[in-house]
């Protein structure tokens, strides 16, 4: 594997240099938030960040995306497929938890039978550069409980690790190696590698928040009906923020936006927290209250995804914990379930 050392202050320059030739999404400071944003002359990359407010899944799975266009003719509407315009893209400086989410989303969107070409094309055209967490960003981080690590190559084409005075750049995949030319010529030595291993160990131990994510699977298998489910949702506002912030939530709606002469069919992020999500035309709703919706959210991440893909659909980023306006904490829920 190709490994190089780069100066700490060179990182911004590397990202900007790439942005001259490629579409580069990087963390950018916007008012009080750091958001993944395509770099432009006015958008300066900011790598001294904890984690981005928004999950970078939006690069492959945008909030709203056009599936096709149509125009009105005398005989009715005629459609044309939306051309997939995804060019070569770099996702620069993703935290390992978020890079892990791409691996989980691939399982869903890139299945053998039904391939989601909108997602897959963008994913294939994108090189993921992970910026490892030498120090865990937040007290709410729990990646080590859900098969992640603060220094990890999972889902990454290139991994950057802060080893003190420099970054160690590891080129994990051939896609990553293609970008090696941007990273200078200084080969990494064994000292740098040892240092990285030490930092990785230390960072792992520094993750203090832990949840029994694997332990709850057999409990969930047997407790679809349990009084516990009536105890979570009382304060839930059904705002959907948890699902919109989540790097692995993938549920979407498909709707048409029509004008007199033409229109588009779009898909938009949707949320299992919303009453209308499962409401049928007849009025029947299989998930009749917020209790059933919360059960679905927990089950989907910690049981159904495991049943279907043998993976937990949570990366431990803590965004839902930090964003929930009424302080519902998934860590507490999983903890409580483990004691049922």
């Amino acid at each position: 594997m190709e490994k190089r050392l780069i100066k700490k202050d060179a990182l911004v320059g590397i990202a900007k240099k790439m942005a001259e030739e490629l579409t580069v999404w990087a963390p950018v400071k916007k008012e009080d938030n750091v958001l993944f944003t395509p770099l432009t002359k006015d958008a300066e990359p900011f790598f001294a960040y904890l984690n981005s407010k928004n999950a970078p899944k939006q690069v492959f799975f945008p909030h709203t995306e056009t599936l096709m266009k149509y125009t009105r003719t005398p005989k009715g509407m005629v459609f044309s497929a939306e051309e997939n315009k995804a060019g070569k893209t770099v996702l620069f400086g993703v935290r390992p938890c978020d890079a892990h989410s791409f691996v989980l989303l691939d399982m869903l969107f890139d299945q053998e039978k039904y391939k989601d070409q909108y997602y897959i094309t963008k994913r294939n055209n994108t090189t993921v550069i992970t910026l490892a967490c030498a120090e865990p960003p937040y007290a709410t981080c729990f990646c080590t409980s859900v098969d992640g690590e603060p220094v990890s190559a999972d889902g990454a084409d290139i991994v950057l690790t802060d080893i003190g005075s420099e970054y160690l750049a590891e080129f994990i995949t051939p896609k990553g190696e293609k970008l090696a030319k941007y990273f200078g010529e200084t080969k990494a030595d064994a000292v740098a590698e040892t240092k990285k291993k030490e930092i990785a160990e230390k960072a792992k131990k520094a993750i203090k928040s832990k949840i029994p994510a694997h332990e709850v699977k057999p409990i969930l298998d047997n407790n679809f009906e349990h009084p516990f489910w009536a105890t979570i949702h009382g304060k839930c506002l059904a705002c959907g923020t948890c699902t919109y912030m989540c790097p692995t939530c993938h549920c979407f709606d498909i709707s048409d936006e029509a004008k007199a002469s033409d229109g588009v069919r779009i898909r938009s992020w949707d949320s299992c927290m919303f009453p209308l999500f499962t409401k049928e035309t007849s009025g029947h709703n299989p998930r009749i209250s917020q209790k059933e919706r919360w059960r679905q959210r927990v089950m989907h991440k910690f049981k159904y995804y495991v049943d279907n893909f043998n993976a937990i659909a949570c990366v431990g980023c803590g965004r839902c914990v930090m964003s929930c306006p009424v302080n519902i904490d998934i860590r507490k829920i999983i903890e409580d379930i483990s004691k049922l």
Partner: protein
Amino acid sequence: MQNPYIPYPVEVTKIITEVDTKDIKTFRLKFVNPEDEEKFKYIPGQFGELSIYGKGESPIGIASSPTQRGYIEFTVQKAGVVTSALHEMEEGTLMGVRGPMGNSWPIKFLEGKNIVIVGGGFAFTTLRSLINYMIHENNRKRFGKITVIYGARNPGLLIYKDELIEWQKRDDLNINVTVDKGDATWKGREGFVPTVCKEVAPSAENAVTVICGPPIMIRFTLPVFFDLGFKKENIITSLEMRMKCGIGKCGRCNVGSKYVCKDGPVFSLAELDKLTKEY
């Protein structure tokens, strides 16, 4: 590879109003590009997403049989935005269809067995597909005795009326049509579907029943079949859920770990017993 979100363009070539209340119509669709018919190769029990640009999509069971070439048919009740727009359409209009989606009636499993079809009201569409498939001259000998029990609230609400008459003329098909309450002109059977099932009393010997209908009908029909000795493995039905993508990605039609759109809609009672009751 076919983009599963893009519909095949189709032309509405025939519209049949099925019921007196005029809110159930059958739409015959012809593929604008003839090669698409081959791509839309389906099995009875599957469904399609009917696509009306500007309105959206609606998942509807396929009512025609793959043995009928040159077109596909969907029988649709006017209910929401898309189906109401569909009901306003005229012959010659262009629209779209995605699919086929879902598993299907378990044709291989049904082969060599006696088949009992039980339908109620408007939920007879994919059963009609199955009947027409099984009685086709190329397929009939692969199935044993075929018994059909079909009921509606009143004679005016029976769908596929002409076909029911044609089927009754056949000697390789035992057709029992019933209505909850007849009218002045009705000469046929009166009685609820579960009662008729009890009267017809099909043997459970080497038999499978395929049931589709309103929940209340299913609830009262199942005990009849249990009493007749049918095992849960041999009772097949089809679920409905709100759907969007139809290919197991948009995340709303799951019952437990199974997506009704992709892993269903057809399940045996034995399979349903293993799932949660969230439907």
